[in-house]
């Protein structure tokens, strides 16, 4: 079996791969060196999709059906026609139930039913609390991602969640026709005009073995839900900081979950220059630092929200990529790590696929 790690960088998409337990090789850059925000593997169709935004040529979604050897791109339908609203980038991609979702900035969700050849607008979440303000540039955070991620329900095609950056999580059970904010119990260290929204959700993941168990890395704290996102409980205690971007849920154990805390504020790198991934095996009651093989000093590494991935092996592999171009991998659930790429462009996303 081949392990394929897709790395989205500021200068194109790269593929790191190995057969079995062999050495890692690197291919790329792909997508003509366009800045890539998120590259994903759609196991259902055997397609790589990469959301990219060229400074010159705008936003588009690239696709490859031969593991990256050849590529095409299309943005047909990726626009807010007629209302003056601009689409600056596709921030996040999700493949589920035979289609691909694209989360966009300004906030909106598009979908493709034909393998990425054409796209259509699904929703802008009109009328939801906060929506009257989120298209105002004055209310948008630096590097605004709009809708950075879509989380699909594993079995219900019309049931999914969308994150609006700086606003929170919204749930739909009718394929985007109606929405409910799902931020009950989250903390905000700033005034809220409407307590239903105003939360900064960085990453939302679901346990693959329990659809009621969700975890999120938030701007302020780690949080867990045991009721499918209806309510949230903070589980930050025991972590070195409350701030971070990525998160990964164990494929076989609902209580095991990984995060990479970083310093808040401007730095947003690993505390004290000591690289580490943190794991809980008890749903956030306790946390353990995993740093075997990671640099222990002078390593001011940052990892963005799509920068960590976990595979579905019996003993899952973990992977993360840094904003300074290193990729680290672990074959033993995070106990020990190896640096499998050292000099890539700044990394925005890491995803993994098991092929063959």
């Amino acid at each position, binding site marked *: 079996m081949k392990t394929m790690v897709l790395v989205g960088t500021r200068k194109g998409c790269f593929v790191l791969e190995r057969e079995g337990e062999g050495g890692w090789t690197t291919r790329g850059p792909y997508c003509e060196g366009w800045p890539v925000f998120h590259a994903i593997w759609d196991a259902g169709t055997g397609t790589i999709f990469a959301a990219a935004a060229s400074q010159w*040529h705008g936003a588009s979604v690239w696709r490859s059906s031969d593991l990256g050897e050849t590529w095409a791109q299309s943005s047909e339908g990726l626009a807010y026609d007629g209302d003056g609203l601009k689409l600056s980038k596709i921030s996040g991609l999700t493949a589920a139930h035979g289609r691909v979702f694209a989360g966009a900035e300004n906030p909106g969700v598009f979908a493709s039913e034909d393998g990425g050849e054409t796209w259509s607008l699904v929703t802008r979440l009109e009328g939801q609390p906060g929506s009257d303000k989120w298209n105002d540039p004055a209310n948008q955070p630096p590097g605004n991602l709009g809708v950075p991620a879509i989380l699909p329900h594993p079995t219900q095609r019309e049931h999914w969640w969308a994150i609006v950056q700086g606003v929170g999580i919204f749930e739909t059970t009718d394929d985007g026709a109606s929405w409910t904010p799902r931020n009950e119990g989250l903390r905000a260290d700033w005034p809220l005009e409407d307590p239903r929204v105003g939360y900064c959700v960085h990453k939302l993941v679901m346990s693959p073995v329990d659809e009621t168990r969700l975890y999120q890395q938030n701007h302020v704290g780690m949080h867990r839900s045991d009721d499918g996102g209806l309510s949230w409980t903070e589980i930050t205690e025991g972590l070195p900081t409350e701030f971070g971007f990525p998160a990964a849920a164990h494929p076989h154990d609902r209580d095991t979950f990984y995060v990479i805390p970083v310093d808040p504020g401007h730095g947003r790198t690993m505390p004290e220059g000591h690289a580490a991934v943190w794991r809980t095996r008890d749903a956030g009651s306790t946390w353990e630092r995993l740093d075997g093989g990671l640099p222990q000093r002078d390593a001011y590494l940052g990892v963005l929200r799509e920068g960590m991935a976990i595979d579905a092996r019996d003993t899952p592999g973990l992977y993360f990529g840094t904003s300074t171009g290193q990729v680290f991998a672990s074959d033993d659930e995070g106990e020990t790590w190896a640096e499998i790429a050292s000099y890539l462009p700044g990394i925005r996303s890491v995803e993994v696929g098991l092929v063959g």
Partner: protein
Amino acid sequence: MNAEVRLPATLPPLFPGLPRRLELDAATVGEALDQLEERWPGIRDRLCEPGPVLRRHIHVYVNGERGAVETPLPAEARVDVIAAISGG
């Protein structure tokens, strides 16, 4: 022909068969873009935003003068499409 169109190097890798330089019969820059779109579907999205208006960092010059989508093309015009300096 009434216009020689020169395209930036960033475009041909996206559209198989697209040359850097080609000749078109078109009355305006917009018509030239229409003809390019007919032959290489999707190319307009790479040069224009909805409107269509030229993307912010795509500059078009007609006989050396900065142009826009609606700019007319005189006979024997030279049209330079430039990917302007952007980022590092």
